[in-house]
């Protein structure tokens, strides 16, 4: 088990503080004024996240998104921040094998669920997942910034059964923006990989 402890915050609080922070966060959501509500300031919370098969213990601001937890507290920077508001798909991760936007997921809400990031997609021996290899073979990226999200979304797209036709792939890959315009090659990559992926 990996142990990661983050002590950067201004204070470390225990489980009670965490509970209070969570409650305050919920109240703030209802009020639709999270940014200016004073109640949620600085509440830190201990949490355990299961990422790529390993448990990670964190103590972070209760408002921390799963994306920021990965990037800023666990050095898992393969998940990218492109908008931080659920519009671009660059932060896509798999949670219990479903594709989710980690920028719109509170880290604390991902506890007890299996999180897969791009760093966890290749085999333990470093062998690339068929989708990763297919992206390379088809030059399905340019700058590469949206690529981790595209690949995880593509893996889920195949698993969902949404990769049978080109039109189906295009429709179900439209939540992941690629500003370089690699889209046709992303479709080719998915068609290459779909037959090579094992179950799940």
């Amino acid at each position: 088990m990996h142990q990661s402890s983050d002590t950067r915050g201004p204070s470390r609080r225990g489980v009670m503080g965490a509970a209070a922070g969570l409650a305050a966060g919920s109240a703030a959501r209802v009020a639709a004024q999270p940014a200016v509500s004073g109640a949620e300031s600085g509440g830190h919370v201990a949490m355990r996240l299961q990422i790529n098969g390993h448990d990670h213990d964190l103590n972070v601001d209760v408002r921390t998104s799963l994306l920021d937890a990965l990037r800023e507290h666990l050095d898992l920077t393969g998940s990218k921040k492109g908008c931080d508001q659920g519009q671009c798909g660059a932060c896509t991760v798999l949670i219990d094998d479903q594709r989710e936007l980690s920028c719109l997921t509170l880290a604390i809400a991902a506890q007890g669920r299996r999180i897969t990031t791009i760093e966890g997609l290749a085999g333990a021996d470093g062998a690339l997942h068929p989708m990763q290899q297919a992206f390379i073979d088809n030059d399905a990226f340019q700058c590469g910034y949206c690529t981790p999200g595209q690949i995880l979304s593509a893996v889920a797209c195949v698993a969902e059964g949404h990769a049978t036709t080109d039109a189906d792939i295009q429709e179900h890959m439209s939540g992941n923006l690629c500003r370089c315009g690699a889209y046709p090659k992303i479709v080719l990559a998915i068609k290459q990989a779909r037959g090579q992926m094992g179950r799940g």
Partner: protein
Amino acid sequence: MPRDTAELFGKPTPRIDGVAKVTGAARYASDEPVANPAFAWLVTSAIARGRVGGLRLDSAKAVPGVIDILTHDNVGALAQPPAQMDGGPTTTTLETDQIWHDGQIIAIVVAESFEAAREAANRVEVDYVAEPPSATFDSPGVQVEPHKTTEDSKDPAKGDAAAALAAAEVKIDARYSTPTQHHNPIELFTTTCVWDGPHLTIYEGSQAMWGLKANVAKQLGMDPAMVRTISRFVGGAFGSRGGTTSRTAWIAIAAKRLGRPVKLVATRDQGFTIATYRAETRQHLALGASRDGKLTAFVHEGWEVTSRPSGYNVAGVDTTARMYACPNIATAVHVVHADRNTPGFMRAPPETPYMFALESGMDELAHALNMDPIELRRVNDTKIDPVSGKPFSSRSLMACFDQAAAKFGWSGRNPKPGSMRDGDWLIGWGCATATYPTNIGPAAARLAVTPEGKVTVQLAAHEIGTGAYTVVAITAARSLGLKVDDTTVMLGDSSLPPVTVAGGSNNAATTANVVYKACEEVRRRLAEAATADPASPLHGADAASLQLKGGTLMGPTGASEPFKAALSRVTGGVLEVHAENAPQGSKPGAVAGLYEGKSAMVRGTGRENVTTFAFGAHFVEVRVHERTREIRTPRVVSAFSAGTIVNPMTAHSQFMGGALWGLSAALFEATEIDRKTARYVNHNLADYLIPVNADVPDIQVLVVPEEDDQVNPLGIKGIGEIGIVGMNAAVANAVFHATGTRIRDLPIRAESLL
């Protein structure tokens, strides 16, 4: 003399950074690990003109975890505004209390976490002294003036265009407009600054490593040698990361005040106002021709919005006036100063807007002449640059038109607008010329090779998605007769030898030519050692005739020795060379200027004996629904001819991505501006429309072979920008063919056709 470029290049090669990009290992600027960073959040102006009367910070400071708040009052005197590429002034941020535009940085909160910084930034209360702003064209208070011309860029003029236009047998005279656009690379604008004593390291996605280093040093009054910039991967740039913007120096100051690294990740909406954009244009185009289609008069005027202090403009008439043979040319460009942030380079900055007008106008002229639009281009094709009178070094425009037309099936087109349909869908076929000047810059590179044939190449070039790592690897490996897989390339770090800005599509030509030069130095030293050594099978041969091929040093008669043996005559270990390249036509001091962060370039229109451009042709089918006016683009064929293609695999991606940008410019992209407040309205990726996967048609890219040893020794023309150019017009022309309605204002949307 360089080797046969066909032997070196042209083999499709997967990106050497592919594994890093598909595994998440590629570190973009904000991914770089730094110890114990504090996090910054920008406070930006909610008005577009006026000044900051006061900031009330108590509530923000009370947020747990807040460490510092930078404002004009406490840090304003610590930095000068960043130098601009055009050498002129730009808007300020914390240096003064003045507000030049919406979304201007007016304070920076630094805290223990993003969460605390964000909350505190939202708690900063600003007392504005507001004045009514001028938003754009026609807004009260804008100032219009002619743009500044320079020795290198004058408004093309020849003959008497007004008289020729008045006398023309056939003419068109029309006004066009193109909208504000933002680059919106998916990587946000980020800056992380780390001090180690007097040394400053800046992690920031950049298209100009040494330029950023020099500019920030100057802003902070530092010795540039104390500043290092790192940007190993860039998550899209498209011009947005070419210049130095204001945020960088302030984050450096924040880190200095704290004695601790500071990391800024600006939000998507802030990215619309803290960086640059493509300004909206208005254009007037008049073309005169004789009945046989030959142009007799060319008049092209542009108006471009810029900020109050900056004279930035793109003046695309310098390209359009060179496209077709014409004896009478008149052009003019005006800038319109408004209360806006300063615009900047965005993919094919001059050509994207200005070729829209010209290539729409050519289609209108073809229609007026009752002539096929391809034939109109053919009648006016020229091997001589009509502005300068110099020959084009190569120009394969009509070969591109002909090959793309054949692939597209253009011969099956009924030229009558509205004549082709499929059920409720009106079908239109349109075409247009693509072009981009061929530029190349000075560069330096360090290359080291081991006896085992492992090569390391280091230069401060920029991987912005163009395949820059792979271009360098291919050039080094193939020139040395070694393997791409055995090549390690390091880019994106100002501690490496300098390279000019990655702009103007110069990267492949610039980096390949300097790396080739380094390899040639290795070859020369190995060849001279072998021919001088009686123990070598190559002893006595002419050193100049020896080549590095297939892991050997080989003579013209077939005698050879392994690379390792050849290298051992020169060194017992590793051979390292440092090469510098000032391309032919460079101004004196071009290489020295690199080390001062200057971004020089030999431009396609600035050469002594020739004019250098790449050319292409776009063909597009649009379908417009008869009743709803919904517009679809089911298929595109684009052909390009751009000299030596270093890596066909990545080149195809760039051409295709460029063509998609062109479709996007035609049908989707526009930053909407509230005219009353001069604020951007759709500053996010849901409301600023860019294509998603389901929007993309069948795009076929053809590459027409071309050799051109005048552009540079390796014959490489730029390919990163040409793909976008002209596609907006091709779509508009197709919409006209489908509907009989000529749309001269972009983007074209269903409501344009109601």
